[in-house]
């Protein structure tokens, strides 16, 4: 399985770091991309990830009210909701897209959520709807 | 000659069985699109003109030229034979115009491979649609210039073969000769002029109007969308793109002279940065610059008039040049 996670630098990436330092295991299928803020995540990147064969995409950011840039994660939630509803409408398996709030001290939560999401994606199987190779 | 039965459908079955790739109009919703088909009952011939033109068979919208990864792999040119079934006189003439562009001077090997064994089966027109004007270019809508021509006159299916390839093809079918009366009916049908629009092309006036503010007026509503060029049967602009990073492909894709960055040069200068310049260039290309190749590059199919979202009408624009 290939799972791409966009983790915000200040909270969720630090949380992932903490999971690593505490030796908490979560599957290697998860590839983390560090962005400065979850509000930076462009829906085009998410669709591009699916197009290139990602089986699941996670947007991880700070809890509402805790964003380092004040309101970045609010934009992330808005975009996530719109994209998810649209994907649902066209019949794409929208369970493959996930939004996660994880703070810098929640290493355990990060690892648990990633493991649970990987299991969910494994049950769904490989993503064939938007994957495209020549 | 006359065929008892549905010639077009039987022809498609024969062609598919002989290993040809067959392109024919397919009914989608309320209209028709030219597409590659894999069985004879996908085709539908109840139309005046399909939305897109037959150039998709010879000059596809995307074509992979090279694949690269650790090595560069040149994709071999597809040499499978192609047949285009169900085109009209305008599209048939357009294929001849595309030949002039792709096969004279620098020979395009991809086009040549597809064109060499191309079989065209055309249908003669009964009536014109609201925006047809092929007769202004000397095209007879009832006598298309194709390998095989099928006309439905008075409920009978008349088939005529106009070339060696066409004659070889129709030999496989049981055609009976025409009676004298039937010949007369066919000749009357072929020589009848259909009522349709006319375009007045005055090349001298066109030449002199290069700096005229007329073009700014014409281009008021133009949105530079490029639809006219994509649906036009004689437009041939393309661009070559590399897609991918470590591994990828080089593809040739349709480009349009109406896109804003079509004429962007590496120095970042863009001689046609305004949409009226691009629109003027399109009309000049169709009626003046291409005279070098010997013919107007418009066949009067009327697709650009029917589908332009801005309502720009090539007949009015050219007839009203000042």
């Amino acid at each position, binding site marked *: 399985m290939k799972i791409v996670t966009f983790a915000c630098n200040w909270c969720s990436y630090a949380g992932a770091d903490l999971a690593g330092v505490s030796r908490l295991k979560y599957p290697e299928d998860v590839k983390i991309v560090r962005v400065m803020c979850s509000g930076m995540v462009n*829906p*085009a*990147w998410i*669709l*591009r990830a699916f*197009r290139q064969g990602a089986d699941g995409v996670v947007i991880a950011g700070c809890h*509402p009210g805790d964003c380092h840039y004040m309101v970045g994660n*609010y*934009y992330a*939630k*808005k*975009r996530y*909701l*719109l*994209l998810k*509803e*649209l994907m649902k*409408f*066209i*019949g794409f398996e929208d369970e493959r897209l996930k939004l996660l*709030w994880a703070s810098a001290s929640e290493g355990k939560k990060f690892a648990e959520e990633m493991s649970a999401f990987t299991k969910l994606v494994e049950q769904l199987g490989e993503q064939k*709807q*938007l994957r495209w190779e020549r | 000659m006359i065929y008892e039965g549905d010639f077009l459908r039987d022809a498609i079955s024969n062609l598919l069985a002989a290993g040809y790739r067959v392109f024919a109009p397919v009914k*989608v*919703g*309320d209209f028709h699109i030219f597409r590659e088909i894999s069985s004879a009952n996908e085709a539908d011939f109840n139309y005046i003109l399909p*939305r*897109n033109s037959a150039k998709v068979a010879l000059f596809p*919208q*995307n074509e992979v030229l090279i694949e690269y990864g650790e090595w560069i792999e040149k994709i071999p040119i597809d040499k499978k034979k192609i047949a285009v079934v169900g085109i009209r006189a305008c599209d048939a003439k357009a294929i001849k115009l595309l030949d002039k562009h792709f096969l004279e001077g620098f020979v395009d090997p991809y086009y040549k491979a597809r064109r060499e064994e191309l079989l065209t089966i055309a249908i003669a027109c009964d009536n014109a649609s*609201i925006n047809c004007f092929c007769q202004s270019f000397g095209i007879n809508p009832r006598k298309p210039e194709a390998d095989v021509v099928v006309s439905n006159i008075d409920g009978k299916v008349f088939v005529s073969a106009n070339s060696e390839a066409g004659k070889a093809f129709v030999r496989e079918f049981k055609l009976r000769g025409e009676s004298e009366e039937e010949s007369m009916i066919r000749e009357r049908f072929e020589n009848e002029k259909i009522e349709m*629009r006319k375009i007045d092309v005055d090349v001298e006036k066109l030449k002199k109007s290069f700096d005229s503010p007329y073009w700014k007026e014409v281009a*008021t*509503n133009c*949105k*530079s*969308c*490029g*639809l006219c060029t*994509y*649906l036009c049967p004689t437009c041939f602009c393309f*661009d070559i*793109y590399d*897609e991918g990073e470590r591994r990828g492909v080089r*593809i040739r*894709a349709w*480009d349009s002279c109406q*896109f*804003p*960055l079509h004429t962007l040069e590496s*120095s*970042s*200068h863009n001689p046609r940065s305004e949409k009226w310049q691009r629109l003027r260039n399109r009309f000049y290309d169709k009626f003046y610059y291409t005279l070098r190749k010997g013919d107007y590059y418009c066949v009067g199919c009327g697709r650009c008039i029917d*589908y332009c*979202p*801005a*309502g720009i*009408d090539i*007949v*009015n624009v050219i007839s009203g040049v000042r």
Partner: protein
Amino acid sequence: MNELEKIKEALRSSSAEKIVAFVRKENEPREVLAILSPNEIDRISFSPLSFNNPAKLLMQLNGKVAVVAKGCDAMAIKQLIKEGKLKRENLFIVGISCKGVADYRKLSKLVKLNEVTSVELEGDELVIKLKNGEKRVAFAEVVDENCVYCEHPTPVIYDVLIGEPREGKRDFSDVEEFEKLSREERWDYWISQFERCIRCHACRSVCPLCYCEECMVDPSNLAISPMSTAEDKASYPRLLGKTVNAKDNAIYHILRVLHHAGRCAGCGECERACPMELPLRKLERKLEKVVVETFGYDLNEDIPFLSKLDIVGD
């Protein structure tokens, strides 16, 4: 005074230097947009086939401009004013309380278009005047499907209003009907639609809200200056290739529609312009439903949707 006379009178009363209005297209019974000067007011025409949206044309003009706008056109103008692309003081809007436009494609199936001289709306009937005689059809048979669900038939901004104010309705039953289908059915439907798309970008070119000079999903439209180096141009992020296939087309349309969340005026120009007749309005309407129901936003508010940051649940 009939509707057209009222429009002309309203335009004469403005002090605009230029007028954006409908004129009759030659050879076809419909209207197209034109930029006129005040002494050409008599060329103006208006009928149920005046379906184009003048909002996009307004963005290319400077100075005081008068414009004839139906309900959806006025909404598009309001959105552009909200986003700072147009100035309210430069516009003189003759708003027309719209009863709907006729679908040109449906009309071309009922009559031969080259026999039609004009069309008029009389009550509930569309009167099609032919070269010899006339034909009457119920307007409900030829009305554009988009107009059936119109929420703002009365212009939301205007200087002069022609016609009685009418109530729109908020009705998402078509979207709800579609959502009842199973996931496979929905995917199969949409992929077969996107297969037809030829990426001509006509939908984007006619949309008044698609005014970005550099479109994110078009690799052939880049904002380059004379200062851009070759390295810049080569490594420009390309999110979509030029390859035309159903999946890339799906990504193109999803992204385009996402950019219109809370901004789409519902004029339907995209669907009319599409040569392959893709059901683009369906996608936009789904987003309109989400914006209205989940976020509680009304298009008529004075703040753009993107500035509102109410978060919904967790």
